[in-house]
């Protein structure tokens, strides 16, 4: 393996490593715009120029590869001058409209300007004007004046999605990103172009003008849009989630996530079940737990546990499902009819999108030791129509195509307990007891994805209104029924759960062999 010296530090890296990556190994960040670790290197921005002793010209670190014995400087005066020049060139025609730009605060150009240029503009002439608000796709808006023509977005559409909608049109400082005639930037991952855009040239129509990003708090989480479980930054403001951004995990989603998943954050804020409800009237946890317990106990006493349909949710965390299992076994008892609801399967692709639109069916399978014999929502509807159930206790409100039939069937049961984060429309009306649950933004927990990767979601903010994590609700109701479930902390549940199931414990964070250069 070649050994080279970077700013006096000796490093040994694989043949074929670029100078930029080798510098990261040596502990030096080389500023870059066009380079992205997941994309090819066109070496067009020239921000990453470094000095190699003996070479007449500076070299783009993102392109040139290491040689044995190379002596590289990434912080020499010559390099700094070149960086400053490149930044000044980029700003020659840049509108510098940071005050109204959504990227401000997380913009590479801003950051690098302060780090490497920080001088007043010497450009006196009129700037080149370009398109300011160009709807390049249904979810993305393009601003030609802010674009630094790094081609990251174009390469994303060529190399990651393979859809190739984008190209550069015109040339020189008139060049702009455009779609090919008759096309829109409308692939399933189009909002990733907003992430890869180092500046505010591509903005999300959903997030545009909503919030200055420095007001957001970011929590590590997982998207619940499908069983892939793409890792995300869940960005929130005053206990409201305002956007998802993909979080790098080479084992799951790399740097990406799909648009549907990204926009699924809205469900965290909408249609929430806020308070415990007893027969349509607001109640307190104190009264509701007792009411739910006595109603449920009455049904079991009268008709036996087999008259109770217990519906678990593949949207729930493994911890919640573990408590659901304990609840079903102890509080309801042997013979209980198990069902699993959830969103219906949808489209899938080769990249990230998986057909199962629920994040934790694999977790449910592990917790329940397989789901054989556990009926789906349409089996639930069948059982309801056949009059087999006297009571239904249901987690979550996702019922897919069987929704109508289930809703109709629920009209006739003696007891319907709904334990969910959402009102679920008619479901709340049908519920005799409604128990408000926390979303995955409001609690800690784990999901198991389709490839058996166990992933943690962190709590971003406290539960909305009266909501509680499902596992706590189960403990409350079970307790009121005289079954004390012995947990105080999530960790205790996890210890028991990992013992009981074959589920591997979650890895703390995604690790990599070598430090990766920044995106």
């Amino acid at each position, binding site marked *: 393996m070649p050994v080279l010296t970077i700013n006096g530090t000796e490093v040994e890296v694989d043949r074929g490593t670029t100078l930029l990556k080798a510098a990261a190994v040596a502990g030096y960040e080389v500023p870059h715009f066009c380079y992205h670790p997941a994309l090819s290197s*066109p*070496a*067009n*921005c*020239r*921000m990453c*120029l470094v000095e190699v002793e003996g070479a*007449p*010209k*500076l070299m*783009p670190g993102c*392109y040139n590869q290491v040689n044995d014995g190379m002596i590289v400087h990434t912080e020499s005066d010559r390099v700094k*001058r*070149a960086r*400053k*020049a*490149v930044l*000044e*060139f*980029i700003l*020659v*025609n840049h509108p510098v409209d940071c005050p109204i730009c959504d990227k401000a605060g997380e913009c590479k150009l801003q950051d690098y300007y302060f780090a490497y240029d920080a001088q007043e503009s*010497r*450009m*006196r*002439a009129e700037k*080149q004007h370009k398109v300011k608000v160009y709807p390049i796709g249904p979810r993305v808006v393009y601003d030609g004046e802010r674009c*630094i*023509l790094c081609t990251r977005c174009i390469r994303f559409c060529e190399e990651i999605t393979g859809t190739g909608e984008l*190209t*550069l049109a*015109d*040339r*020189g*400082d*008139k*060049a702009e990103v455009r779609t090919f005639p008759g096309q829109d930037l409308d692939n399933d991952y189009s909002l990733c172009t907003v992430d890869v855009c180092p500046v505010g040239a591509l903005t999300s129509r959903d997030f545009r003008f909503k919030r200055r990003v420095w007001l957001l708090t970011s929590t590590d989480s997982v998207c619940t849009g499908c069983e892939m479980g793409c890792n995300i930054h869940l960005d929130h403001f005053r206990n409201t989630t305002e956007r998802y951004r993909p979080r790098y995990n080479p084992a799951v989603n790399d740097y990406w996530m799909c648009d549907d998943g990204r926009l699924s954050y809205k469900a965290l804020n909408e249609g929430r079940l806020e308070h415990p409800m007893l027969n349509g009237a607001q109640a307190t946890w104190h009264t509701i737990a007792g009411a739910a317990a006595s109603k449920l106990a009455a049904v079991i006493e009268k008709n036996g546990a087999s008259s109770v349909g217990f519906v678990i949710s593949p949207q729930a965390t493994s911890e919640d499902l573990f408590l659901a299992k304990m609840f079903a076994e102890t509080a309801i008892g042997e013979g209980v009819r198990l069902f699993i609801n959830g969103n219906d399967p949808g489209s899938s692709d080769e990249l990230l999108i998986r057909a199962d639109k629920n994040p934790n069916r694999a977790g449910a399978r592990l917790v329940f030791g397989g789901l054989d014999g556990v009926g789906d929502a349409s089996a639930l509807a069948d059982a309801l129509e056949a009059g087999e159930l006297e009571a239904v206790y249901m987690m979550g409100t996702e019922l897919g195509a069987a929704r109508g039939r289930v809703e109709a069937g629920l009209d006739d049961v003696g007891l319907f307990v709904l334990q969910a984060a959402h009102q679920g429309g008619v479901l709340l009306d049908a519920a005799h007891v409604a128990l408000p649950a926390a979303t995955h933004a409001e609690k800690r927990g784990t999901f198991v994805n389709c490839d058996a990767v166990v992933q943690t979601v962190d709590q971003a903010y406290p539960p909305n209104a009266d909501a509680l994590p499902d596992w706590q609700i189960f403990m409350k109701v079970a307790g009121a029924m005289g079954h004390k479930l012995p947990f105080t902390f999530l960790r205790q549940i996890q210890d028991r759960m990992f013992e009981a199931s074959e589920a591997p414990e979650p890895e703390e964070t995604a690790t990599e062999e070598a430090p990766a250069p920044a995106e």
Partner: protein
Amino acid sequence: MEEKYLSRHFGIDKAYNLDVYEQQGGYSTLPKAFAMDTDAIIAEMKKSNLRGRGGAGFPTGVKWGFMPRDSDVEKYLVVNADEGEPGTFKDRMIMELDPHRLIEGCVMTAWALGLRTGYIFVRGELQLAIRRLEVAIKQAYEKGYLGKNVLGKGLDFDLYVHSSAGAYICGEETGLIEGLEGKPGQPRMKPPFPAIVGVFNKPTLVNNVETIAAVPFILEHGGEHWASMGIERNGGPKLYGLSGHINKPGVYEAPSGITVRELLERFGGGMREGSDLKAFIPGGSSCAVLLPESLDAQMGFETLREAGSSMGTGCITFMDQTTCMVRLSARLAHFYHHESCGQCTPCREGTGWAYKVLNAIEAGQGTPDDLALIQDMITGIAGNTICAHGDSLVIPVRSYIEKFGQEFEDHVQNKRCPFPRWRKMRNTQRMSA
């Protein structure tokens, strides 16, 4: 009068037709070339000291030696006929007046290096050249100089004319390759060089029109003979395009190493009446400007470098005392700005900014800081770009400021251009031309 090679047919009526070309002895050297193997041909090319005529002056024999020898990979010939450098107009003469010479050179090159497909990438504006080449290629196919099993020697070689969309940057060999592949003409990073990864990612030889047109002579008379018509490391006659305020602008053939003075006086007919030589650009607009004191410099890559400029395409622009150097540099900046592909930051943004500042100085709106700004700015471009286009602006502008700094300062100080109104001048010239 010396014997003519490259321009031998320029005065012959309809030499662009195959029968006339053959009467003049055209294609008669093909059997001789086909009797030589790759090594022998490359050895002759090296001996000839032929330097690439596209501007960079890379030794042609050496470049040919870089081409991989395996016979099972597809390899391409690309003739760079994009001739777009301001002041350069020699390749079009070959294509318009003697297209079969170029085709014959292509066939020999293909034979030498085992190339099966060739493209002549012609600047879109050169419509006559394109038509002449197309007809000539058709004639050559009919006579069996192109196509399957050329002259029964087992060479399969197809040759196509590709009309460029007319962008200067497509003359840069990798921009050309991108253009040929149907993509925007944006130069590629090097390495890899085209000899390894070229058109359609296959090994590709890129040579200028005049370079390839010299091949039949070199193989006919031998490399040493070619080298003898030149100076050290610069072999053979070449075509010099002379323009500017001279009596007889045009394309002339003369040996390598001829002095600029001799070209000006013997071929160009000297400066026009009333014109004194103020400066000249020896090899196209991207070369540094030289003063009359350099008139005795020899036309060769090393000799002109010593004189502080470069040989470039060998097309010389002579300028008299009426030429405003500020306006000239602004005009050049305009050109390089307009033609920048826009890929890399320093060239995309720097050329336009340089143009704006130079134009402001020319218009009498410059400030005393502007000269330092320009120099600082072009230093930020120099050497920091993907292709040499950026430097093509830096080198001349730097030379104008260095050699005519006073003129720039006068513009700033007097807040106007001290030269007669250029608009009026250009109009009168047009009318008298």
